């Protein structure tokens, strides 16, 4: 009998669909992202500002609590686009720090362990691998961005006088859309940094550098050359421009919506290109 006729019986039953396998990757990425204790601590710390904002909304909707105070106080307690933009700016900073802490653990260890061939010798693609990591990061960043933001909006809508929601629905929609755009950029930056360097600490520093150092450089360019195109390399300013447009706030000086969107699209494409170039199943040493 030919040797291959003495076959063994392998499992030939049904297998989970592709989406379920992707779920395995996402759960694994989530475990890794939330493993550092600092991530838990930062998640807790990032609740402080939303709680303060919730308190602010409560006060703003209970006039009897500040009836004896200065009349100007009423204008300060307005829940409008400025309030939402301030909330978004603070939470955006938390989200970047969170991504810098959680993101590097998602890809760097696989590169350091040369484990990518093990992933890609399973029926999953590079796109699956990246999507799973982006999804895990998006889930994590949602906890400090649009989720508390939406809760605040709902809280305000439920406490405000009738008609407020109809007049200000754009605040809620803009907040969610703006934060999702931000999450995509931050998660992409974290995955790209993690794919770029094998050392987690440096990858984390790269994430922070991408947002804060580039912002500084953009501002310096604008200041020194008396130009406005420095904003094109400033991810925070570009995102802020889009947020303003989404929330119906006046655009910052020197920024237009197409300019902001174009800058963000360019940055996203560049980060995606880094991920594409770095995450290969086989590393070639020439």
């Amino acid at each position: 009998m030919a040797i291959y006729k003495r076959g063994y019986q392998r499992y030939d039953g049904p297998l989970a669909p592709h989406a379920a396998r992707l779920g395995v990757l996402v759960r694994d990425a989530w475990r890794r992202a939330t493993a550092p204790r600092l991530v838990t601590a930062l998640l807790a710390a990032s609740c402080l500002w939303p709680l303060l904002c919730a308190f602010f909304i409560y006060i703003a909707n209970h006039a009897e609590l500040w009836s004896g105070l200065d009349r100007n106080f009423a204008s300060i307690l307005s829940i409008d686009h400025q309030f939402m933009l301030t909330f978004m700016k603070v939470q955006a900073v938390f989200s970047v720090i969170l991504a810098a802490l959680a993101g590097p653990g998602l890809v760097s260890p696989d590169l350091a362990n040369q484990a990518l061939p093990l992933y890609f010798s399973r029926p999953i693609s590079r796109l699956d691998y990246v999507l799973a990591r982006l999804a895990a990061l998006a889930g994590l960043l949602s906890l400090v961005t649009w989720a508390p933001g939406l809760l605040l909006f709902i809280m305000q809508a439920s406490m405000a006088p009738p008609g407020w929601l109809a007049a200000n629905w754009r605040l809620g929609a803009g907040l969610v859309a703006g934060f999702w755009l931000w999450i995509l950029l931050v998660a992409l930056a974290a995955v790209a940094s993690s794919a770029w360097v094998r050392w987690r600490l440096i990858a984390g520093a790269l994430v922070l550098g991408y947002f804060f150092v580039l912002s500084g450089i953009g501002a310096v360019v604008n200041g020194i050359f008396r130009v406005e195109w420095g904003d094109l390399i400033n991810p925070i300013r570009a995102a802020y421009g889009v947020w303003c447009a989404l929330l119906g706030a006046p655009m910052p000086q020197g920024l237009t919506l197409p300019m902001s969107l174009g800058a963000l699209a360019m940055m996203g494409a560049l980060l995606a290109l880094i991920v594409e170039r770095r995450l290969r199943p086989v590393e070639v040493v020439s």
Partner: protein
Amino acid sequence: MSSQEIVFENVSRFYGDVLGVNHVDLRIRPGLTSIVGPNGAGKSTLMNLMCGLIFPDRGEIRVLGVSPRDTERLMRITGYATQFDAAPPWATGFEFVLSGLLLFGYSSALAERLAWAALERVGMTEAARRKVSSYSKGMRQRIRLAQAIAHEPQVLVLDEPLNGLDPVVRAETLALFRQLAAEGRHIVLSSHVLHEVDSISDCVVLLANGSVIAEGNIRDVREEIRERPSQFLLRCADPPRLAALLFERAPVAEARVLHEDGALLVLTRDRRAFSRVLTELAAGGITIESVVPADENVNAVYEYLIGGSA
């Protein structure tokens, strides 16, 4: 193309300017096949091509009739273990094997059963709940092997799986390879430890500079290069006299009396004539204690083929 073979047809793969493999024609049948070659010969490239991790620039590959571009089907029939210590140190051995199975789409219950079965096969059940970071090098090799065989693949591709194994575990691992091959699977492995692979392999593929320079059973490979002289190590009472007689009667290219007592190394271009003369000499009263082919191992063949040891 046969659905029972791994077939490479004129396959070339380059990494930019770097040569991976070039014009490779190869048919790998069920059993244990060893891919042997020096560093940079193209062993890993060949294996990565087989596993669908990379694709050829030219030529065609079929793994049991499946194109490597059909990754969904290919990866269900292939198991792969890299040469790197790729198991995540923060996971336990069991978690490592289990997560691989879940990525294949097995249900949790079935994946757990298969994971334990694989761990048992490689003798890692007792250490399965320990973190990979606490494993010895040999244990890490075995856990990599477990994740490669856990989904019961028909084709098992193992990149240097014997590295770092102590002699006992190495012998056990080789026995496991033989067992897997005897079940009708394709076991394709690469190794730097040449004397091990030639003794266990059904077929040896010799690579150099990205090209297959010989393929087949070690003895067959040796036969293929008959124009090269064969080496025999003879043990006898009087090597200088035997050497003189052989030069007189047989087609001997070279005879060298070795330092060790009674050893004579002979090179001949005609094995049959040489054997006949040896028989005649023995029948005529010359004491010849043993005749051993000295070049039927991979190292010797390699020396012949590329002019240097692998």
